[in-house]
Every structure is written in C-alpha cells, then in structure tokens.
C-alpha cells in the first residue's frame, strides 16, 4: 500500500496580506513546514510537499485555488483556512471533491455543526470553546456580573449569546450589553456605558483591532484601574504582543495553547521563534498539530486515500504539545483542553513574550459542544 | 426704416410675458419689477448697460433662476414654478452668453442631439444609432443655413470662437422653438458672420418670437422691431429703436455719443 500519485501534498490556504495576516499568515506556513520536517519529510516512502496561497479574505479566490489544487495539482488536503466564509466555502468544496480539510484559523461552530463534512476537521478553537473558557471559567474566579461590548454582527452576537449562557449557568449574571459597529475607532462612549453599569467584568465580544482599541481606551479612561476587569473573547498572544502589556495588563482571555505552559510547549515555541521571530499562538501551534496528525493518519491508514485517512483521523487520539487528551468527534471537532489566561502586569513578566498567567484549564469535554448535540447530521 | 425690412407673415401676439419680475441676490436686487411682453413674429431686443440685469432676466424667463417675485407665462401657461428642462420642452429655448456646444461631438452630432427630442428619438435605448440617420437631412439643412456645412465632421472643440457661436444657433434652431432667447449672439463674431447671423435671425423670426440681448447697436437697429432698455434692473425705456435711441436717458446711461 502507498500513496496514490507518488506524493502527499498539503495546501495551506489563509490570509497572508490582510487583516488576519498576524493571526495565522505566513507563520502558519512555517508551522506546517516544521511539522513536515519533524515527521521526516516522507510518509509511506513518498515525499510530502507543501503549497500555500494567500486567499486575501476572498472566498471566491479561496474556492478557485482550492479547486485548482484538488483538480490539477494533486493536493490531498487543505489546512488553516482563516476566516469563516472561506473555511465554510472550502469545506463544502472539499466535501464535494472528497478531500480532507482541517481548519485552525476560523471560529464558527457551523463547521462541525449544520455544515459539517465527513472529511472536514476543526482543530484549534471555536466560538463555543472561547465562550465557555472566558465566560464560564471567569465566573468561577469571581467575575460574576458582566457587561458586554459586542461587535454588531453575527460573530459578535454568537459570542455574546454563548458567553452569556455560560456566565448564567455558572451562577453569574449579565447586567447589560451595548452593540458597537464593526471597525469602530473610538470606544469611549461604549466604555462609559460599561463603566456606569458597575459590572465586574466587561466582556469584549469582538475581534482584532476593535478589541485592541477597546482595551487601550479602557486603560485610558481608568476603567481597569477602577476595578473592573476586561475579558476578551477572541484575542491571542500575537495581538497582546502588539498591544503591549502596559495596556493589556489584567485582561483575561482563552486560548487553546500557550507557549510557556510546560517544557513540551516551550520547546516548540522556541523553535518556532527561531524561524519566525515570534512566539506561536494557538493558530500556529494548531496548524502544526493538524499537519502532524494528518501525516500520522496516512501512515496508520497505509494510504492517502481520503476515506481511509478520514477514518484514521476520527479514530486516533491526539496527544502532542498542542493537544493533551485530544480526540476527534464524529462531527470532525477535535476536542482538547483550553486555557483561561490572564495578562501579567508589566513587572511580572521576566522574559520577552512571557505575557500570561494561566488561571485555569478547561477540560475539552466542557469546552466543546458534545458532538451528539452539535446539529451535525453525521452524528447519529 | 429698419422695421420695414422684415416681412411679417402672422399677426403679432404675446407668447411670453412677465409681470413684476424681480430677482434679489442677498441684499442686491438685480432685477426689479420688470414687465415684459414678447410677441410672436417679432424680434425684441433687450439692451442696457453692463450689469443691468439682462442675463438675469434671461435666466429668470428660462427658469435657470427662480424669481424672487413676479409671474411668467408662456403661451398662456403659467411657468413661474416649472423646471427649466420642462420650459425648454414647452418651446422656450435659449442660447448662452458664453458659448455652449458639446465640445467632443462633431458639428453634425451637435445638431442631431438637438433634433432628437423634438423627433422623439431620445429615450430609445433599444434602437441602433443608425436610427438617427433620418435626422441627417434636417441637420445638414440647418448647418448649410448657418454656413457650417463644410465643418460637418469637425469636432466642435476645434472650431473657432465665432463658429462655435454659429453652431450654437444652429442647434437652438433645431429645436424649432416657439420663443427663442439669444444672449449676445454676435459677441466675438467677425463682421461677415454678423451679417449671416443677422439674416438668420431675421428669417427665423418670421415664424417665432425672438428675444435677444445685444450690444451691437447696428444689429439692433437693423433687425429688431422692439427694444426694451434695462438699467439697474429696471425698465428705463421701451419702444422701437428710433424712439428709444433718441431718449436722452438712454443715451447717457447706455449709448453714449455713438450712432448706430
């Protein structure tokens, strides 16, 4: 038994020049390269090749490239897929073409819910896990009254709604919310409203620059100094680095990986740092992990044929520096532990990129939707 | 003597009239309480010193400006509150003091554009361009009449100033207006063109009313039946050229010592 066409080819398709370029971007490609090298460069005695493309956040470009890869370039699997419109589009295509796709860059739970695919896998995080992590776990830490600053679009709503649910089920309450437009420059009006609500936690149900600006201005208006805590629902190491600990101190957030967690994760972090000049976030680490697992699955299946590899991926446990006690649900969701993290105070961090204290670990089964309840039709 | 030069075919009747026409710009009244009657088959001149308000009266009559007070009626219909393009469709067409052609269209196309509306060939986006060819004959007639036949395919921008003015008159005539308003049609024209245009105006006035602003007094004397003199926005004198030109107030305010 061996690979069908004399090689195994993996495609990394993500945003390399747009707003999410830091979130995953070229560094994700680097992570995938590392995985292939670490695996030995070959599987089933055939070489493993890597291609990558910048989809510029346009689903049609992504879909075009994915088609071309599958149809004419013998690509066997596509990974990363930052931003949900692209991930959903490529997953639908992969399903049609019977090819494997593994998502680390997109957040929507639809990928393993209504729009799930037998060959699609969701690896690093999703909105549910973020909501459970930040919402549920933070209440246990004492943050039991919440006010949301929510980006006024579907992503924001679902974060707010899911987080609110966990806050309540953990015994907290939501005292209010204000919806701000996407790409707002100035948050002061909203922050004043949050301030006067008196909530202990201000939940930032937004992403990217919006979150960063909100955090920065919260510091300026003395909100954090006044005793309220900020909790960002989608924010990663890369962005904390951009914001600086000065402004971000005290912020809580949830990630699926932190480089300074233990020796294993530190080892990868250091190697990654040497190659890219920055420490990995969960998207980078997750991409490494997904590529690695994919190659292992091929080895186990003894072929790169899609059905067999997908079956192996579903069956194999995941245990690497990224995912401890990981397993893959029938809906394609890779279930692993998440971490509730808090940004250190400026004096506390003793080396560069050492930004977080781990507040708690959220077990995978709590963090992710039970596949049976995911709404995915593949789960009986 | 000048008047007898024109043959009138129809009875003169009022086609355009204004009552109490007033226009105030800020605190400055450019036109004050002007009454004006323009007759069919007559050439009516509006003269007066610079800044007297002649162009403003034109703008008011054609509704490019909204009067501050007063009423305007065209062919018995009140047009005081009508939009300018509507007024044009009702048959009141003007030329501009500063020349107005479609610079990148050929001379022929300039005229054809004007012919399209009266011939109901303006909104058809489903017909081919060649459907406009049936306008060619009329367009060429008009061009020939103003002496532009040789420039048929020249782009209007390439014409000299004087010939642009002539072209403008041709396009205006293409609309077959009932009332024609000409703002200094002879300005900047060479002597030979003045002759041509004078006779064109004289001709067209046989079947329509013409109101013109003109500083060239020999032209006024030559082709105008009736003269209104405006000064500081008000009517100073009215009558035929001979009467008006003898009025001492007109002489001091406008004509100076010059004879036509």
């Amino acid at each position, binding site marked *: 038994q061996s690979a069908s066409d004399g090689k195994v080819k993996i495609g990394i398709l993500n945003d390399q020049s747009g707003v999410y370029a830091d979130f995953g971007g070229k560094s994700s490609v680097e992570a995938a390269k590392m995985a292939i090298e670490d695996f030995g460069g070959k599987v089933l005695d055939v070489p493993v090749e890597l291609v990558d493309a910048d989809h510029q956040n346009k689903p049609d470009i992504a879909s075009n490239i994915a088609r071309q890869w599958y149809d004419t370039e013998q690509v066997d699997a596509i990974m990363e897929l930052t*931003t949900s419109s692209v991930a959903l589009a490529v997953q639908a295509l992969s399903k049609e073409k019977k090819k494997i796709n593994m998502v680390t860059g997109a957040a929507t739970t639809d990928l393993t819910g209504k729009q799930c695919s037998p060959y699609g896998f969701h690896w690093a995080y999703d909105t549910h896990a973020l909501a459970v992590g930040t919402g549920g776990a933070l209440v246990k830490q004492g943050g039991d009254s919440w006010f949301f600053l929510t980006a006024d*679009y579907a992503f924001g709503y679902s974060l707010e709604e899911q987080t609110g649910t966990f806050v309540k089920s953990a015994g907290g309450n939501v005292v209010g919310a204000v919806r701000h437009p996407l790409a707002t420059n100035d948050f002061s009006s909203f922050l004043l409203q949050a301030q006067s609500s008196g909530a202990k936690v201000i939940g930032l149900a937004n992403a990217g620059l919006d979150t960063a600006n909100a955090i920065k201005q919260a510091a300026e208006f003395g909100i954090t100094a006044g005793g309220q805590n900020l909790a960002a629902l989608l924010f990663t190491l890369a962005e904390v680095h951009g914001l600086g600990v000065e402004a971000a101190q005290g912020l809580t957030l949830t990630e699926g990986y932190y480089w300074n967690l233990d020796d294993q994760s530190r080892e990868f972090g250091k190697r990654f740092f040497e190659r890219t000049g920055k420490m990995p976030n969960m998207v980078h680490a997750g991409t490494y992990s997904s590529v690695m697992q994919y190659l292992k699955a091929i080895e186990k299946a003894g072929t790169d044929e899609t059905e067999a590899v997908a079956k192996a991926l579903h069956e194999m446990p995941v245990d690497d520096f990224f995912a401890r006690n990981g397993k893959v649900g029938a809906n394609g969701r890779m279930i692993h532990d998440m971490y509730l993290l808090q940004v250190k105070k400026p004096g506390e961090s003793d080396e560069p990129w050492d930004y977080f204290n781990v507040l708690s670990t959220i077990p995978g089964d709590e963090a992710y939707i039970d596949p049976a309840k995911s709404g995915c039709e593949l789960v009986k | 003597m000048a008047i007898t030069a024109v043959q009138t075919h129809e009875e003169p009747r009022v086609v355009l009239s204004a009552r109490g026409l007033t226009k105030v710009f800020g605190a400055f009244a450019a036109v004050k309480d002007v009454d004006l009657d323009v007759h069919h088959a007559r050439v009516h001149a509006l003269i007066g010193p610079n800044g007297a308000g002649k162009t403003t009266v034109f703008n008011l009559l054609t509704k490019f400006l909204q009067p501050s007070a007063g009423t305007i009626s065209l062919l018995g219909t009140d047009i005081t509150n009508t939009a300018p393009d509507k007024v044009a469709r009702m048959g009141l067409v003007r030329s501009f003091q500063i020349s107005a052609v479609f*610079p*990148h269209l050929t001379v022929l196309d300039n005229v054809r554009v004007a012919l399209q*509306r009266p011939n109901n060939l303006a909104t058809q*986006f489903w017909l081919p361009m060649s459907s406009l060819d049936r306008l060619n004959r009329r367009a060429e007639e008009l061009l020939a009449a103003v002496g532009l036949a040789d420039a048929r395919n020249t782009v209007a921008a390439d014409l000299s100033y004087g010939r642009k003015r002539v072209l403008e008159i041709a396009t205006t005539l293409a609309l077959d207006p009932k009332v024609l308003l000409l703002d200094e049609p002879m300005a900047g024209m060479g002597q030979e063109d003045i002759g041509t245009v004078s006779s064109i105006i004289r001709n067209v006035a046989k079947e329509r009313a013409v109101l013109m602003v003109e500083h060239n007094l020999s032209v006024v004397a030559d082709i105008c039946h009736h003269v209104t003199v405006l000064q500081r926005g008000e009517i100073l004198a009215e009558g035929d050229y001979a009467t008006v030109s003898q009025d001492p107030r007109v002489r001091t305010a406008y004509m100076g010592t010059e004879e036509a």
Partner: protein
Amino acid sequence: MSHTTHTTTGIRNERAPVASFTYAAFLLAGLAFLLVAPIFFYPIFLMKLLCFALFACAFNLLLGYTGLLSFGHATFFGGAAYFTAHAVKEWGWTPELGVLLGVAGAAVLGLVMGFVAIRRQGIYFAMITLALSQMFFFFCLQAEFTRGEDGIQQVPRGHLFGFIDLNVATNMYYFVLAVFIIGLAVIWRFVNSPFGMILKSIRENEARATSLGYSVAHYKLGAFVMSAALAGLAGGVKSLVFQFATLTDVTWQMSGEVILMTLLGGIGTLIGPIFGAGLVVTLQNYLATSDFPVTIITGVVFMVCVLVFRRGIIGEFYASRLGRRLGFEHRQ
C-alpha cells in the same frame, strides 16, 4: 460629399469601414475562442472571469459613457449575489428566476442610490456612492439573511428552466457565457442608441443639454439603474458559479477592483474592461501563491496605469499605429 473634411485644426473621420470589419472579425474570433475555451482552461476560472468581465463592462457603461465614476458598484454586484443566493437556497427558486431577482434587486438599489447621488457631479458623485455603498455593506453585515461573515454557503445551482443540470460544469459554463453575451449585447445597444447619444452630450455639457430640454437627472438615473442592473446580473450569476455569496463582494475594495479592471482595460472602450477583468483576476490568482503582497501590487498597478497608461490596454492599442491602421479611433 466626402467623408474626410480636412480643416487646419483636426481631422475626425467617421469610423472607417475597415474598423467595423476588423471589429466584427475580432468579435467572431473572441466568441469562437470563448466557445472552445473550457477545453484549454479551467472552467471555474473562466466563469469567474466572465462574471467579472460583465461586471466591469456594466461599470464602464456608467463611467465610460456618462462620465459618472461610481465608487459603490460593489453594492449591486454583491447585493444581487445575496438576493440570488437567498432565493435559490431558501426559497428553492430556479436559477434563472434567482438571477432575475438579483437583477431586479440591484436595479432597485441602483434607483435608490442613484436618486441621492446624481444630485452631485464628478468627484462628489464618487464620494457619495462610496458612502452609500458603505451603508449597504453595514446593512449586509448585520442583516439576518446574509449570515454575517459566514456568508450564504452551499447555494444549489439547480436546474436551468427546470431541466438543464447546472451542476455539470460545461452546462454551467455555457449558461454563464450566454448571460455574458446577452449582457454585452445589451450594453452595446444601450451605448449605441439614441439614448446613448443623449448621455454622451450630457457628459459634454450639462447646462446645454438642459437648455435643449433634456431632463439630465432622468437620463443619468436611467444609465445608473441600467448599469446597476447589469452589475447585478454579473453578481447573481457569480453566486451560482461559486455557490456562495459573501461580504467580500459588497466591500468598497470590490468597488475599487472593478474600477481598476476598467481603467486597466480602457475606459470607454467596449471590450477593454473584459481584458482588464481578465488581467486582474489572473493577477490575483497568481499573486495568491507568490510571495508578493497583493495590495501593494494592486496599488502600484493603479498608479502606473493612471500615470502612463491611462487609455488602458485596449485604448492604447486603438491609439497605436497598428490600431489606427486597422481603423480604430480613440478619444481620451
């Protein structure tokens, strides 16, 4: 009377017969090429290209022939994509009805946007359309039926007229090609019609056109709605080709792209935008897998085009020695 009147100032011939001949020859060759193209090229890529080419031509109808630079055409393109996708996916409409709904929707949007925007000219017009399309973007971002940043996914292509299966790639291709040709024919007729003539004259001298009795606003609005509807046609079909409709197509960057396509191909030339679209789409595809950052390249292409290459590919060709020998003329 001779065609060629020589004056000292300039000679503008009517288009010589040789031009219409070469034109026809080119057209036939192009058509023949498109008919067999799927054999040589990747069909989905061709379909995308045709959609964008039609979009660019629709845009050029407005810019090239009425001089109105709309910076909000993504609204019609992306809006129609949403309408079509929604009708087909949620209501189970047949593809042709879905596309027609997209066209109608785009026309209505065009009517509304046009009504506000044509009150100003030139650059103001551009800025107003930009602002209004930004409003529409925010609407799409928040509206329930667009599914936010996920987009409407897995849109079924369905059966054309109930019996031609569009899931078959060749069927889909010829459907797109037919739409493209119809769209182009409509544009060509529109431009070369009595109505088109009036549009041209309005662009030249608005006050004069008014004084000739044309209600300038209505003509402009007519052209705007027409252009919007055709852009909608392109957008609706595109949503079937890719089987999704997303926010990308309503962003102002998309409006910028269609301008680039038109500029690159040649503003005011009938087929220029097709080449422009082809180039941009190919470039984006190529850049996706190269190391060059896309925005920089796009920006530089824009600047270079405006500075030295203003007439666009086709415009430059018409103005070149060869082009003139073939009898084309081009006005800047």
